[in-house]
């Protein structure tokens, strides 16, 4: 069982480690005498290793992967076509089409939950500076300005030149009117002007241009930064790790702003020799209890029959994300990008975002990015 969730809980992934332990228990209840061997592979290496293994006609029995990478991994031959399995077990009816990842009409993986970005805030700093939780972007800017004046950073936001930076950039690029179906220079420059302004005003450190989700969030945990754009997957971690009062609010976006409905998906490996056991594990994780277990991480269960579960509505931090799903949720990956070129899109957009966060010019970044995007969007 390959996963980038460290089963030991290292790198602040305690909640994720507990979740996959619960899934293993559910599996063992359904398949007594069987065990799960989790193999930790860092996020940045998982897809490469899956494809390299597929080239050698080997690989894991099952895999917990980034839902947005399903197309690449399926095209690379690493994942089994699970259409019949999902249909037979009723899983296709239990989940909406938005969380079932397919390529050329074949279903390969399902996400038991969605993860999306929100804005964590340090309530201790907020209260100290007599600020309120912002409801609009201009209020957020004003709060960051006050934080900077008091010697704090305004916001921690990932800007690494890869898929994590791209994930982080999407709400802001789309908020400026950019969309992959019809990319334009003007909308791209407008979107990249967001980080350019934060950097120029000193609200965000240029060092964030090299930080990913994990390191950016850990910087915020040090207590020197007011806001942190991070995902609901850190809600449970923050509850145990933050040494200050904190909360979450929805990223203040216009209706055009889209937040990727990301999250991990479960898939059966293409070269497993234990197909029935692999399918049993996937079915266990995608069961009602398996989907509900993700709530402990702070993720939002995506099973349709859990939509009105009181456990979700009664959690104030999770509710902030739930409201975002309704108002600004967007498909991940963006359907405007050709499935075979999705990973290229992650990298080139991540690089453009990172270059601006390091103090580079939005115009120059957009001028480099747009010709590359034009080759990989649907219809090109």
């Amino acid at each position: 069982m390959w996963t980038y969730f460290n089963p030991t809980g290292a790198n602040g992934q305690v909640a994720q480690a507990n979740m996959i332990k619960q899934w293993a228990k559910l599996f063992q209840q359904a398949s007594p005498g069987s065990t799960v061997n989790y193999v930790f592979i860092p996020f940045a290496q998982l897809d490469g290793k899956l494809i390299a293994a597929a080239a050698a006609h080997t690989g894991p029995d099952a895999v917990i992967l980034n839902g947005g990478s399903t197309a690449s991994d399926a095209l690379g031959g690493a994942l089994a076509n699970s259409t019949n399995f999902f249909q037979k077990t009723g899983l296709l009816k239990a989940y909406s089409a938005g969380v079932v990842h397919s390529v050329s009409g074949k279903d390969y993986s399902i996400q038991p939950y969605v993860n999306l970005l929100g804005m964590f805030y340090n309530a201790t700093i907020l209260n100290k500076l007599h600020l309120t939780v912002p409801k609009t972007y201009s209020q957020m800017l004003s709060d960051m300005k006050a934080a900077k004046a008091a010697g704090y950073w305004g916001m921690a936001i990932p800007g690494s030149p890869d898929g994590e930076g791209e994930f982080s950039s999407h709400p802001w690029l789309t908020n400026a009117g950019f969309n992959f179906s019809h990319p334009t220079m003007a909308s791209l420059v407008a979107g990249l002007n967001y980080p350019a302004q934060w950097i120029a005003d000193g609200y965000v450190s240029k060092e964030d241009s090299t930080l990913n989700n994990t390191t950016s969030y850990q910087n915020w945990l040090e207590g020197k930064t007011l806001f942190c754009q991070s995902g609901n997957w850190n809600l449970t971690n923050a509850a145990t790790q933050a040494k200050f009062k904190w909360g979450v609010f929805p990223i203040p976006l216009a209706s055009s702003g889209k937040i990727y409905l990301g999250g991990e998906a479960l898939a059966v490996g293409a070269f497993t020799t234990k197909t029935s056991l692999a399918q049993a594990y996937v079915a266990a994780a995608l069961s009602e209890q398996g989907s509900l277990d993700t709530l402990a991480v702070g993720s939002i269960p995506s099973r349709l029959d859990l939509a009105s579960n009181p456990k979700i509505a009664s959690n104030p931090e999770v509710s902030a994300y739930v409201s975002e799903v309704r108002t600004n949720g967007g498909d991940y990956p963006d359907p405007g990008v050709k499935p075979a070129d999705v990973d290229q899109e992650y990298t080139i957009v991540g690089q453009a975002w990172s270059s601006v966060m390091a103090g580079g010019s939005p115009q120059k970044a957009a001028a480099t990015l747009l010709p590359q995007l034009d080759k990989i969007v649907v219809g090109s």
Partner: protein
Amino acid sequence: MLTIKKEKALPALSTVRATPAIGATERGSRRSGRVRRRRTLYVLPAAVFLVVMSGYPLVQLVRMSLANVTIATLQHAWAYVGLQNYRQAFGSPVFGQALDHTIIFVILVFGVGMAGGFTAALVLRGGGRFTVFLLALMVFVWSLPPVVNGSIWRFLMDQYGLLNIVSRGVGTGTVPFLYSPGGSIYSVALVNAWAAVPFTTLVFRAALLGIDPVIIEAGRVDGVRKWQEVKFILLPAVRPTAFVLGVLMVVYAFRSFDFIYVMTDGGPGTATNTLPFLGYSEAFTQYQYGLGSAISVIAGMFILVVAVVYSRSVFRHEKAK
């Protein structure tokens, strides 16, 4: 009457050639043939290994560079597209930038590595406990995996790391070592060079210790100063070693990847992308295997030129013996 005959002078020894007996020529020729065959036999296993482990992947790399190989076509027959990947590589704005970064890398790593190594070798020429301790420390640093080295330097160069604590303490503020678009390539290159200095030190030191002490003593007796000793005695003496070491340093710098991967992942943006890193990024994060292979072949061509220069130098040196 005494008649003195002028005797014919004997030919100079150097022009005397012994005319070997015919049988001896045949025996010598058979013996040298056996010696050559035995040498070939000894070299054969290594050659086969090299062909299989290096030659075959190289052939596949070139094949891939001439084909349309992406994530969707990797497991199927590769369609031949000629030089399309090469044209795409040369036409990409990122390629030109990566080439510039590679040249900066090579210059810095070569310069600092060679100068630093020679200087350290000069200082550590003598014996003594301190020298031995320093040399042992250098070997330890050199043997550290690049991942460990790079991670340590990443922490040191962080905006809250030790180097910036010192920088702020002396009033020079926070230095963006690893997130400056223009400066981060120099930071990574200097770390790479620092990691190479122990190796160049050891090689230069061995060369310096191989100089006949009589020559140095003679120079001192004649009153040469230290800098004259270095310029007119030591440097010329280590020139052959310096040439070989220089070639190795250029190759080492050109193919640098690990420090970039650990310290900056090619960022911020593409500020620390070099040709090898770009090839890796295209192939293994963007799954454009054909394009990544073309970039790697281009990078390989540069190294091939350096390797040819090195081989010719070794061949000339062997022939001169």
